[in-house]
């Protein structure tokens, strides 16, 4: 009862020290905004890779390859893969897409600097293997022609790849004929053409970088893996798309999350000092009030609780404000970065999810409480007689 009373009295006095309170709120909001933006970026990566990564699609690359870029499969190997057990089939045959993969230079929209963009040659079943694939403008490329379609992410991040415009990379000029989306997945960072056109254009003969295969069920991975790993005609590594992309981006996601958390932690230390300062000012402004309450018989615990509740509320206000600013400023914002595991640009959209916002607010409350702890302790243990003499 006494704690609630002191808390209410304390909160009623906040308008009298609004400026200092707002400074602390804004300080914490800044930290939370950075934290939420960083986590939203990390979420964006994960989402881009999770959407692309189906559990019932296998990616087959050369044995021991860390990614598609370092992989080479011969067309004979692709034939063996097509006939392997566990792969779904329909009236047109096995649901597989032999794919060639190179990196091309395209200027980034913002800086104009050249960036490595994945250029993928795909088989006619490639679209069926990406369940979220959707053409959003133009049309599909025609097999055998120097035509490309570009992912929505690539179209927004790189110059010169608009529908209807020619673009030059490699030794050729290409016609951009369509834009596709894939629910924000990593695939949207790519440019696609017919696999045979790409092989010819880059003098790759009939070699491929990977084969994608629709599995009968996620459980069929083991069967396919077993069959291919023991087949002396091929030397391949089999993984589900989900596992493949997860491995491809693990270092980048870890780096971003670690760096972001470290930055938020360092900024958090600054924000804690701000909160400490504010709570000290709050306690100083109320020294005589607190001493009077103590003289009347209110316990130190009630005083400590009142300071901590105010600090926590400052944290919540800062957290909500920071989260809101991050949401308005970053949610859906498209960006790209170099995935140094694949040496290619990865486009993604920041995702300020409820979980990310929740993390930001919890962090803000923690900052407020840490900031309020020492001033609150001091207030609860200050000399009553000295407090009563203060002006």
């Amino acid at each position, binding site marked *: 009862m*006494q704690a609630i*009373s002191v808390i209410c009295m304390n909160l009623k006095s906040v308008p*009298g020290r609004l400026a200092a309170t707002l400074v602390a709120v804004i300080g914490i909001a800044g930290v939370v905004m950075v934290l939420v933006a960083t986590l939203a970026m990390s979420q964006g990566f994960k989402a881009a890779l999770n959407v692309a990564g189906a559990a019932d699609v296998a990616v087959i690359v050369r044995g021991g390859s860390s990614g598609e870029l370092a992989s080479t499969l011969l067309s004979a190997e692709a034939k063996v893969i097509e006939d392997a057990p566990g792969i779904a089939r329909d009236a047109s045959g096995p649901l597989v897409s032999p794919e060639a993969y190179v990196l091309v230079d395209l200027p980034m929209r913002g800086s104009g600097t050249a960036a490595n963009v994945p250029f993928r040659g795909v088989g006619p079943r490639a679209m069926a293997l990406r369940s979220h694939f959707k053409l959003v403008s133009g049309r599909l490329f025609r097999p055998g022609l120097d035509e490309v379609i570009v992912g929505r992410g690539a179209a927004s991040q790189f110059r010169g790849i608009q529908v209807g415009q020619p673009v030059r990379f490699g030794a050729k000029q290409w016609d951009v004929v369509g834009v596709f989306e894939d629910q924000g997945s990593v695939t949207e960072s790519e440019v696609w053409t017919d696999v045979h056109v790409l092989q010819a254009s880059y003098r790759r003969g009939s070699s491929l970088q990977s084969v994608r295969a629709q599995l009968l069920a996620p459980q069929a991975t083991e069967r396919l893996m077993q069959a291919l790993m023991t087949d002396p005609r091929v030397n391949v590594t089999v993984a589900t798309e989900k596992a493949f992309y997860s491995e491809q981006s693990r270092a980048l996601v870890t780096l971003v999350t670690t760096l972001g958390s470290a930055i938020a932690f360092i900024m958090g230390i600054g924000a804690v000092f701000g909160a400490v300062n504010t709570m000290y000012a709050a306690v100083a402004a109320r020294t*005589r009030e607190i001493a009077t309450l103590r*003289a009347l018989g*209110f*316990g130190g615990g009630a005083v400590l609780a009142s300071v901590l509740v105010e600090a926590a509320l400052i944290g919540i206000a800062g957290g909500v404000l920071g989260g809101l600013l991050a949401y308005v400023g970053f949610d859906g914002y498209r960006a790209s970065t170099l995935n140094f595991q694949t040496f290619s640009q990865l486009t993604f959209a920041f995702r300020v999810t409820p979980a990310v916002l929740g993390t930001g607010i919890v962090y803000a409350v923690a900052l407020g409480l840490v900031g309020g702890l020492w001033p609150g302790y001091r207030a609860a243990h200050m000399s009553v*007689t000295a407090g009563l003499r203060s002006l």
Partner: protein
Amino acid sequence: MTPALVEVRGLRKEYRRGTEVVPVLDGLDLDIASGDYLALMGPSGSGKSTLLNLLGGLDQPTAGSIRVAGVAIEGLSSNELASWRARHVGFIFQMYNLLPVLTARQNVELPLLLTRASQAERQRRAEAALSLVGLADRANHKPGELSGGQEQRVGIARAIVTDPDLLLCDEPTGDLDRKSGDQILDLFDALNREAGKTIIMVTHDPRAAARARRILYLDKGALVREER
């Protein structure tokens, strides 16, 4: 003979200023009967406010004992003292020390928040105390909307609302004009004579001290004279 409400024996209080020890009270003995009205006078630094703070359990003595209504308060912990103060002592301060964000009634209700009284009971008792000091019509006013004399009367209502054994007043008229000061002293007279409250008042004002039944003079931490 009326039994002593307050018994002080060999009371010593020293403060430390760096390595220097500053004695403030030096082996003081004092008895205060229930229903007494005592004024403590003396020059600045004589130890009167320190004595008042020790009697009210706001500070701990360096040595000696203080018994109030049979309770040896020098042995109580900080939280025990807070609880004891809430039940037995009413404080009246020179600067009133009202909480500016609360109305007069809410200020008076404050000590009752530490009791088991219901909200209705708290409100009834706060209004009764305000009526007693003549401020029933100012119950919903905040301290900033009251005169100094009115604020001090709210302070008195707050001090008496729990019906404590002891009223401790630190320069209660020190910040008031003569007329308001006289009204406050009239209230103390009434509380002492009609309600039987034991009052200990620190004052520099001889006119205020003259209202008390006893005047004790302190100098350099010792009782040097008593007038009745």
